């Protein structure tokens, strides 16, 4: 259980049981155990297949709009009063977030495996939209599970998914957010696994998902590393990304892991306060446990039940973090912190006004922390922020909060 990560052919694979140090594994009901072994074998074959990679690369380029730019946010940097802040513009991809990178990859893999139907979960709706899009493109049937609370705060994305031909299935159980949507998607998959692929949207769940999703997202960091060297003449001093499950963060961190001088900073949702039920900062308030197929840091009570979470951002509102992040944190290679609802909301407005870019509320957490670090680092330093998605989906809920609606944001105390 504590074996080291294997580096083969320049790849960082977990051990053969899917562990990153003490984290990861395959904690699934027996019905899913053999299908997950098949999925792992199919993925490992696909990633070595030049045709598969070429098909995916073509789609990412011609369909999804990659590479996405790296943009120096001069006015934001000026306002922060320190390091130069560069933004990796994942918000400019087709469908408006990094989620499309993984959705296209897994949808192609599903087709290659002969699966005709896709199930997925979604929190903010960005992964659901990306999945519905990939399914429309490849002619796959698509059902997306979404918590009732998230359907309300991301109503625009619900309609987008339906326009794309997906069926959005409302989840009323538990906290009615992302965790409950994953439970329902897994219940569906347990019954339909013979002809259905579960297109999990983050670096969560049983092996091979954390590996597969990271590798589909690692294009973010591969592009960004070349771009920042070309534009700034050197590697950044720090990289900042928000962490829900952690797919955009691992996607940008991956290419820089061996660059030991580059600080890697993940930003979790601090919510209203770091008090049980009012945040989603797993490294601040959690401990190792097993949730939804993987061993990682989890927000749980003394009896091992999963605690309620809160974040203004639906995409970060989840009780567990990707197992590789748990490993990166425990080895000290990456550091993790949190940003409150209130500070994220302020960064949302700041980036909109200073740069003409509406960030997703998720990404606004990274922007908020980046401006803080920029001041600490000082003027001769360079920072790279993963702007993982755009904020159009959040406009309604932000308007509600700013006009004094009931979703009052908290502050960092």
């Amino acid at each position, binding site marked *: 259980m504590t074996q080291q990560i294997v580096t083969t052919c320049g790849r960082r694979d977990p051990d053969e049981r899917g562990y990153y140090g003490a984290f990861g594994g395959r904690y699934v*009901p*027996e019905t899913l155990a053999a299908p997950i072994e098949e999925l792992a074998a199919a993925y490992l074959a696909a990633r070595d297949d030049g045709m598969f990679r070429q098909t995916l690369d073509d789609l990412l380029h011609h369909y999804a709009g990659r590479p996405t730019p790296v943009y120096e946010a001069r006015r934001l940097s000026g306002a922060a009063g320190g390091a130069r802040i560069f933004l990796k513009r994942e918000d400019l991809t087709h469908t408006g977030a990094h989620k499309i990178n993984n959705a296209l990859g897994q949808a192609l893999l599903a087709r290659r495996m002969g699966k005709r139907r896709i199930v997925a979960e979604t929190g903010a709706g960005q992964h659901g939209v990306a999945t519905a899009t990939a399914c429309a493109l490849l002619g796959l049937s698509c059902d997306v599970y979404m918590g009732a609370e998230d359907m309300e705060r991301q109503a625009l994305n619900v309609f987008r998914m339906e326009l794309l031909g997906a069926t959005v299935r409302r989840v009323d159980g538990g906290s009615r957010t992302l965790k409950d949507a994953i*439970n329902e998607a897994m219940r569906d998959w347990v*019954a339909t696994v013979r002809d259905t692929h579960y297109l999990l949207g983050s670096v969560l769940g049983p092996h091979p998902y954390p590996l597969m999703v990271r590798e589909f997202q690692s294009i973010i960091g591969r592009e960004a590393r070349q771009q920042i060297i070309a534009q700034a003449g050197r590697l950044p001093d720090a990289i900042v990304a928000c962490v829900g499950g952690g797919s955009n963060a691992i996607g940008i961190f991956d290419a820089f892991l061996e660059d030991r001088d580059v600080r890697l900073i993940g930003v979790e949702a601090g919510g209203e306060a770091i008090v049980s039920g009012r945040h989603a900062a797993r490294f601040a308030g959690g401990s190792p446990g097993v949730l939804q197929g993987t061993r990682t840091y989890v927000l749980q009570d003394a009896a*091992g*039940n999963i605690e309620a979470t809160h974040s203004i951002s639906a995409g970060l509102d989840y009780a567990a973090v990707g197992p590789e992040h748990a490993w990166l944190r425990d080895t000290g290679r990456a550091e993790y912190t949190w940003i409150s609802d209130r500070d994220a909301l302020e960064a949302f407005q700041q980036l909109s006004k200073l740069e003409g870019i509406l960030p997703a509320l998720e990404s606004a957490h990274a922007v908020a922390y980046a401006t803080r670090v920029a001041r600490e680092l000082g003027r001769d330093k360079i920072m790279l922020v993963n702007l993982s998605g755009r904020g159009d989906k959040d406009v309604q809920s932000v308007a509600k909060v700013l006009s004094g609606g009931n979703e009052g944001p908290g502050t960092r105390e």
Partner: protein
Amino acid sequence: MSRLASTFDALRRQHRTGLVTYVTAGDPSLRVSADILRTLDRAGADVLEVGVPFSDPLADGPVIQRASERALAAGTTLAGVLDLIDRTRPEIAAPIVVFSYANPILRMGLPAFIERASRAGVDGVLVLDLPIEEAGALQQQLGRADIDMIFLLSPTSTTARIRRAATLGRGFLYAISRLGVTGARDAVARDARDLVARIRAESGLPVALGFGVSRPEHVTEIGQWADAAVVGSALVDVIAQHREAADLAGRVEQYVRWMKGVVPA
């Protein structure tokens, strides 16, 4: 011989089909659960599965999800469930199997869990989301405490997985009749018979078949090829329907006797 082994041994000698019953402990309360366990035993259940409620029961259908929510709302924890077994064990003849998700057990810690389970007189442990590849440490430590580790097998399980479960498992093997979550169905799935035949080809361990069992004719049908039938959601539903009623125990007893073909509904 373990209590589970001797129970299944007796069923085979008597050419009887066993009835394994599942209830979620703490639904509606641990105090009432104690009555329910005693009633199940008295009504003739051959093995008692005692479910530990968990906040995220992703292998369960709506009936057991709701039961878990009620049990958690009533303050039920794994420690409370083990205390319940500890208190009722002396009055109960049937073997008792703890049926749980992994996280409550891991949170308590394996040594503490096994020590308390052993002291309470638990006969077997079944963990829904701990497949063979993750179960090594628990299986070894349970073995040293003479508690049987029970593995689930599914229509999707490969022959290699069935062999490993047959080697590592003790007490009995739990065959899942169909793909999907727990929940009552009108008929026994066609997959079920094939799965039991595939298990029989690899193992001499008794086989109990569950998921979707709700009527006595299901038990009769399953008895043609398996050692026992497991009834879960249908029984939990009886408890849900009558949980406020004064004669809850009577309803439970009547249902179990009906399932065993002793009395009409």
